[in-house]
């Protein structure tokens, strides 16, 4: 365990220096836009660390909204005729700067699905493994943050390689993994500080941040209840009434992983894509026979909450499929609040 001190005046220089070995990704606000999004930072672009939380979660770094799985051609003149070729993609080391701890922890939940002993999604895994996560601790959590009730929190280290803590004129960088250590070295940040004192300082900040989080959820009863009891509960109609069945909650959520596969053919060649999809859309479960097992809105709304708060909990016995970032609540056009739904399910 060690802690490095990074003077803010060395911040930009270090980032630029690390470019010789890493691609940099971070939140960046384009000119004229209202909020920053995670993107690959061009030379000279600095990650925006002022925004508490990005509207769009950083899941797209490893799970883009649309991704080509393979290309093909049926042109007999081509030497690739009738071959399925995975497109070249840059999987060189990539440092994700300023990711929030719960967003990084979300990858661990998604990993349970994309990286299993039986099956490994190469697109997700390759992109994930290329990343070194340099997280930014949250000193001032926002109102919809309930990450302390999930397994995460504003200073959660589980998904990170380095945890940065903003100490006003400098950052303290807690090194969590060797990957993280390697990145700090590449950036030339090597000023070690007294570990015990620094950890104490960080823990103090952590406690301060955690007590600021007023919203709490609990799911101890959900665990005990049977699936059918929850499935047949009478509150679903009420929960679902306002829902307009858009995809905002699922698309913004860092832990939602569903996708749809689409082929696009142009002449003799084409591509197969993986596109985000979500349980809120009727088309998601529409069978080619015309039957839709989740044909009406209330079934889809129930599915979203049951998956996150019950099925996942039962299947992996490792908490809920939610890190408590609060995006779904904050950006739902009609204010459907997962904290309230969880309360209903737990009562």
């Amino acid at each position, binding site marked *: 365990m060690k802690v490095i001190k990074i003077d803010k005046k060395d911040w930009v220089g270090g980032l630029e220096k690390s470019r010789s070995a890493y691609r940099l990704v971070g939140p960046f606000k384009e000119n004229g836009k209202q909020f920053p999004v995670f993107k690959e930072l061009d030379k000279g672009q600095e990650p925006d660390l002022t925004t508490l939380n990005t509207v769009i979660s950083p899941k*797209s770094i490893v799970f*883009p*909204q*649309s*991704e*080509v799985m393979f290309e093909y051609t049926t042109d007999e003149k081509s030497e690739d005729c009738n071959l399925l070729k995975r497109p070249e993609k840059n999987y060189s080391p990539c440092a994700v700067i300023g990711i929030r701890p719960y967003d990084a922890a979300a990858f661990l939940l998604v990993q349970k699905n994309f990286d299993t002993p039986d099956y490994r999604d190469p697109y997700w895994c390759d992109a994930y493994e290329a990343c070194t996560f340099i997280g930014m601790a949250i000193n001032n959590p926002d109102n919809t943050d309930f990450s302390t009730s999930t397994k995460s929190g504003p200073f959660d280290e589980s998904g990170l390689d380095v945890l940065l803590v903003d100490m006003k004129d400098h950052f303290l960088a807690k090194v969590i993994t060797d990957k993280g250590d390697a990145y700090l070295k590449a950036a030339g940040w090597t000023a070690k500080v007294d570990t015990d004192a620094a950890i104490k300082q960080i823990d103090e900040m952590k406690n301060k941040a955690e007590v600021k989080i007023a919203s709490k959820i609990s799911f101890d009863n959900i665990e005990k209840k049977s699936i059918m009891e929850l499935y047949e509960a009478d509150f679903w109609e009420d929960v679902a009434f306002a829902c307009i069945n858009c995809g905002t909650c699922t698309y913004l959520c860092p832990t939602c992983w569903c996708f749809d596969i689409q082929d*696009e053919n*142009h002449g003799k*060649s*084409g*591509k197969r*894509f993986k596109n985000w999809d979500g349980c809120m859309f009727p088309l998601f479960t529409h069978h080619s026979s015309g039957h839709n097992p989740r044909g009406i809105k209330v079934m889809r709304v129930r599915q979203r909450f049951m998956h996150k708060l019950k099925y996942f909990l039962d299947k992996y016995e490792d908490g809920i499929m939610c890190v408590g970032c609060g995006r779904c609540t904050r950006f739902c056009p009609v204010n459907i609040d997962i904290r309230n739904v969880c309360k209903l399910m737990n009562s």
Partner: protein
Amino acid sequence: MEHMGIEPGRIHFSWVSSAESTKFVQVVNEVTEAVKALGPNNHFITKEAKVA
């Protein structure tokens, strides 16, 4: 369409009865001339989807 950035003159409307063959020829000629004068269209063309 024009409001969205397609140049004026690329989209034409005409009412031609099946009996008006000369008008039809004339309209087709006018349209092709007008469109040729504008040059190749470079909007709303997807050779393949551009994604990340």
